[in-house]
């Protein structure tokens, strides 16, 4: 096993995609077994690369570049002036991403064979899934920014195709469009940022750009602007304020897709990008501040919206947006290791929660929490695994989410006390909305008896991934410990391994941890107080402040604002330009020009009267004029 295997990692899903896209109608079972086996191979290979990677630490070599094994020129103008090379780059950040992507992808593929059974375009679903994994792995293995952009758009395309999977539903088509256009706005920024960096550094290679920046090659204002443009791409992809609007709507896609793309992998691409470029962000602290505050605003805002949503998947979507905000706060403080740690644990427990909600939807064909209830008797495995995921999300010790969130809070306490306060409040909100969903779905009385009666646990293809992911949701947080990391072959815990420019040794602070757990438990307690049983207190709370409730339900009216801007401003401008085109350019300019010529023709033709006296008169006048002119000049 060598780093060159990284190329094969991409090639496997890519070839499956091509095969399935062309032949899924002819293959037995739509070719799903190929995808499951392929993803299994990718997963094993990914773990192999991770294991292989540990060698570099023992040999004392860091930043191994497997690039040369797979590098090829894509475009080369002027002998290196405009040079784009496709290659693979593996370092500790990549390794974390590979583990996350391949693990969740495998679980989702297995789960989907149960969840998607009987769908009309079953094989196409798996083809799109392979396309996504191909693009995502290319993204995390990119050694240069242009290749990253290439893959960045590729995951966007896969996301578009899968959100719009049920395209007969107008809402799904609209959601797919919204996701594509919103992230496209971010991508405009990303591409501008990439080209601006290239303009000065003369290269797309990430390591060379970092080197150039660290040696003061950029003017600092220029670099700040470039990095902010770059960050706009991350804001779009990772659904951060103000481009967060697409993610809740993206829940129109099949639930396993939400788990893979819109919780665990694609939406963390922005986090990955900022983490990858952190050495450059370090050069311009102003840009890093923007990252921090964007994350902070998003974290708290999304959590409040999650508090009132009635759709089980949308609550999870708001929660994802909020948790991504946590990661960006960590990045804003320069704590790459911490952000990547939270990315890892979040991917597992959030994928678990989404797959759990999928199990509920599959069993009841219902996803409005107010119509669910009491399902714990019918769906025991789903209930308990969902509870594990929820505890991890709420941040209860010793579940995975606790360790990573605790690290973010810990870093904030030292670096940005203001952020600490906001995040702590958000953590409480997180515990509240999580508890709310769990109670409304699995406890209380069933509200829709028809749905309830028919509900039953699905087969092992769906239960298996839930159990596997819940194990990860419990234990994956332990990678923070030095001894665990060392036992796995790494030099230490995840914080010591990732981003080794600033290795941090994890210290467990019991008082701090107790405070954090206390906050989570308080949130859970509040949740119980309001939504336990018939949730009367929650109803009263809503009646107490209807305006506030409406504000949150309508997502602070930001979606409406954007819709208004598109309808009034963008389409209005389109109307003005189209009218200008029609009336000024066409009717006045072109048609008017031809009519003018016709008009002159109409008028001038009367000079040709056909009468001899008229012509004789004109001739006489002409002779006189010419004679006068001749005499004057003489």
């Amino acid at each position, binding site marked *: 096993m060598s780093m060159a295997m990284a190329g094969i990692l991409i090639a496997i899903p890519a070839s499956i995609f091509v095969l399935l896209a062309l032949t899924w109608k002819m293959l037995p079972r739509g070719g799903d077994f190929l995808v499951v086996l392929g993803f299994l191979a990718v997963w094993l290979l990914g773990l192999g690369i991770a294991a292989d990677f540990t060698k570099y630490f023992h040999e004392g070599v860091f930043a191994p570049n497997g690039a040369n094994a797979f590098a090829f020129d*894509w475009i080369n103008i*002027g002998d290196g002036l405009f040079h784009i090379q496709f290659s693979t780059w593996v370092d500790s950040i990549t390794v974390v991403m590979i583990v996350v992507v391949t693990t969740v992808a495998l679980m989702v593929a297995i789960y989907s064979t149960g969840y998607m059974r009987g769908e009309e375009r079953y094989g196409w679903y798996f083809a799109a899934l392979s396309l996504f994994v191909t693009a995502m792995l290319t993204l995390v293995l990119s050694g240069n920014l242009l290749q990253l952009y290439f893959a960045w758009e590729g995951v966007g395309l896969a996301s578009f195709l899968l959100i719009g999977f049920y*395209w*007969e539903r107008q809402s*799904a*088509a609209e959601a797919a469009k919204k996701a594509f256009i919103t992230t496209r706005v971010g991508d*405009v920024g990303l*591409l501008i940022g990439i080209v601006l960096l290239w303009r000065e550094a003369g290269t797309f290679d990430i390591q060379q750009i970092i080197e150039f920046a660290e040696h003061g090659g950029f003017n600092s204002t220029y670099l700040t602007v470039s990095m902010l443009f770059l960050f706009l791409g991350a804001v779009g992809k990772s659904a951060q304020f103000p481009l967060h609007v697409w993610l809740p709507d993206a829940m129109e896609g099949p639930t396993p897709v939400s788990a893979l793309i819109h919780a665990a992998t694609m939406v963390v691409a922005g986090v990955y990008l900022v983490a990858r470029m952190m050495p450059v962000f370090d050069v311009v602290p102003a840009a890093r501040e923007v990252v921090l505050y964007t994350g902070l605003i998003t974290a708290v805002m999304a959590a409040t919206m999650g508090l009132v949503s009635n759709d089980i998947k949308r609550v999870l979507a708001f929660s994802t947006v909020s948790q991504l905000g946590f990661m960006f706060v960590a990045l804003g403080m320069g704590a790459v290791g911490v952000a990547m740690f939270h990315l890892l644990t979040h991917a597992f427990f959030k994928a678990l929660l989404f797959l759990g909600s999928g199990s509920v939807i599959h069993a009841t064909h219902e996803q409005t929490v107010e119509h669910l209830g009491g399902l714990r008797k019918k769906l025991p495995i789903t209930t308990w695994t969902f509870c594990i995921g929820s505890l991890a999300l709420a941040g209860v010790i010793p579940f995975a989410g606790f360790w990573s969130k605790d690290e973010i809070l810990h870093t904030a306490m030292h670096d940005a006390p203001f952020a600490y306060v906001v995040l702590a409040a958000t953590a409480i909100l997180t515990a509240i909305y999580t508890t709310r969903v769990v109670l409304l779905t699995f406890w209380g009385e069933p509200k829709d008896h028809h749905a309830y009666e028919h509900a039953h646990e699905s087969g092992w293809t769906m239960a298996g991934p839930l159990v596997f992911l819940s194990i990860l949701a419990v234990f994956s947080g332990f990678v923070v410990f030095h001894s665990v990391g060392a036992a796995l072959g790494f030099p230490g815990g995840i914080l010591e391994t990732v981003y080794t420019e600033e290795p941090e040794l994890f210290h467990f602070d019991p008082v701090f941890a107790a405070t954090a757990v206390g906050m989570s438990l308080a949130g859970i307690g509040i949740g119980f107080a309001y939504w336990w049983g018939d949730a009367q207190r929650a109803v009263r709370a809503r009646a107490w402040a209807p305006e506030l409730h409406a504000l949150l339900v309508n997502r602070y009216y930001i979606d409406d604002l954007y819709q208004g801007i598109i309808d009034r401003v963008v*389409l209005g401008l389109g109307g003005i330009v*189209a009218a200008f085109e029609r009336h000024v350019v066409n009717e006045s300019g072109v048609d008017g020009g031809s009519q003018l010529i016709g008009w002159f023709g109409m008028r001038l033709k009367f000079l040709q009267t056909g009468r001899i006296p008229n012509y004789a008169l004109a001739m006489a006048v002409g002779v006189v004029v010419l004679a006068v002119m001749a005499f004057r000049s003489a």
Partner: protein
Amino acid sequence: MSTSDGYILLILTGLPFVAALLLMLTPSRERTAIIAITGLSSFVMFALSVYVFQRYDWRSTEQFQGVLAWDWLQNVGFLGEHGIQIKVGIDGIAASMVLLTGIIVMAGTWVSWKVRQRTKDFFILLYIVVGGVYGTFVSLDLFFFFLMYETAVLPMYMLIAIWGSTRKEYGAMKLMMMLVAASILIFTGIFAIFTEANIGSFDLTRLYTAHYSREMQIIFFPMIALGCGTLGGMFPFHSWSPDGHASAPTAVSMVHAGVLMKVGAFAIIRLGIQILPEGAQFWGPALITVGITAALYGAISALRQTDLKLMSGFSSVSHMGYVFMGLGTMNVIGMTGSVLQMFAHGVMTALFFLLIGAMYDQSHNRDIPNFSGLAHRMPMWAIFFVIGSLASLGLPGLSGFVAELHIFVGAFRAYPIVGGLAVLTAAITATYLLRMMSQMFFGEFNTRWDMLRDVTWAERAGATVLVLSILAMGLWPSPWVERISTTLAQTIPGVSL
């Protein structure tokens, strides 16, 4: 590419005319014969075009390859030694354009077999256009260049006025009047070049090495640029294009938007930039301004179009705006992007018109709001259309992105603000295309269109060829980039990288 390959270039130019002649001799009721002649000749053209592109050696020090010349008129009147020659040869730019023509003519021929009205006459005129296009691309003599240029333009009037739809007479007349008016400017420019060079020859390679005063270049470059630019759909002289395309029959729209508009942009490079580089340098900023204005203007207009063909027409105005913007950057990266965009836009716009035609022939309706859920009834059609749209909005992996990337980068090198606006235009493009797709293709199927059937085999084959071209350039752009960028760097004096 050896000199003997020059004969291939001659064959390529002559073949469409020969095919047209053969068609004239064929009785119009012999449909099989018509199909056989057009099918065979278009395939040979395609194969030879691929061969020419493949054989062009960009590593060679000689940029004009396959050069063959015969004197036609010399030492009479104002003509000196080698006054007017039949001279063929290509550079890397022309090689790409020849390939483009081959692809589009083959696909266009396949989908035109369904033309029922005066099929024979249709093909005769179409092939005269094609011959003119090839002739323009391979001519290295200014006289024949212009002759071929006009040959390609003039039959358009009849093709649109006879076989067109909606306001066909209006569209045909408008297109012809504007293009003929523009030709006057080109004509003036050509004689200015001839006079100033003072070598008594129309030989382009000799004209490249002649000396032109800076003043002359500055005065006459805009004439060439405006004259040829009108054919390229240059803002604000683009208005023939949406109307002309909306009323033209399918294959004519394909050839016109796909190839003929590129002849306009190609002529700017051949006559304007390669002969008058100082003039081009001087007017570069103006060209960029016109280009970015057109890009934004076309995209914003497209947002509000309800006729699918008009939307596509304004989309063309916008995409051709990128071409002029790239040319105006006057650096190799941006200009390479322009030529790449000519190819990329040619293929994808041909795909659009092919698909729109496939639907319009059945529905006789192109109003976007009238349709919904078409993917349900015409899945293959929808898939092809989505791929074309994704290429158009610049998705990496498809041809549009490669071209736009070069233009953006070139623009950023010249004027970062323009580069930023250009990238923004790509977002507007995404908006109007996605609005159209989500309205027309997705959602519940409107049963009013129950009689629609999916693309026929001929249409499917044509669309497949175009889609494969889009993918080829999108995934592996080097063959194009190498040929085009080397030619630009070596044939334009004083160009920056």
